[in-house]
């Protein structure tokens, strides 16, 4: 898994590539925690290049959602593949997260 981030008008855009699973989730969690602590109120997580995710990846995003919400911010998900989106639909996490296809829409909302 590779993660990088950039700041776009005060919004942190985190781009993830590869697998988000039991092996990589701890690193993903650390990264999101670091971004949240840095004071970013809004985080957009681009999952467009994530090929595989399991329940530990979903749990990491739920934890990030709670942490950011607690500090008055928001986390948005971007460009989920149909396979990964299917996991969000099965677990009904698509009700919890704002999910966008277009980065511009995610940044504007």
């Amino acid at each position, binding site marked *: 898994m590779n993660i990088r981030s950039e700041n776009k008008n005060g919004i942190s855009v985190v781009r993830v590539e590869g697998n988000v699973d039991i092996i990589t989730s701890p690193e993903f969690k650390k990264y999101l925690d670091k971004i949240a602590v840095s004071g970013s109120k809004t985080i957009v997580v681009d999952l467009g290049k994530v090929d595989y995710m399991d*329940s530990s990846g979903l*749990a990491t995003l739920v934890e990030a959602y709670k942490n950011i919400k607690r500090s008055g911010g928001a986390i948005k998900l971007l460009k989920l593949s149909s396979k990964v989106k299917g996991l969000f639909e099965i677990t009904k996490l698509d009700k919890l997260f704002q999910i966008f296809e277009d980065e511009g829409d995610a940044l504007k909302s």
Partner: protein
Amino acid sequence: MKNVISNDSHLLKEESGKLINALREKGINEDVIFEIHVGFEEALRNAMMHGNKFDISKKVTVEIEITDSFVRICVEDEGEGFDPEKIPDPTLDENLLKECGRGVYLLTHLMDSVEYKKNGRCVIMTKNFRSENKQGRG
């Protein structure tokens, strides 16, 4: 194929890699392989973490049967077992923010049938291959 593996989560990827390769050799399409992949790793993870409770002296037995029409996977741990009926539904509003409890739910919904035996120590899951599950068909 039957394999008895050590209770080491790093072996999980090795096992799922073998399964994915075997499914690709059968010509199963990538969307279906993804569902089997997630279901298998969730079962293996549950066996190692919740069943064997990270005990490296314990083993997990994996049995996989792949035919032209289905894959059947049995994952058995050496723990005390569990009652899958007692796992709270993670999709209920009151459970949506919980970080745990989605593994069993995912594998139940991604596979065509899931059966627990030996007091929950053994999970047997099956995914049927329909013509549309094969690459280049349907």
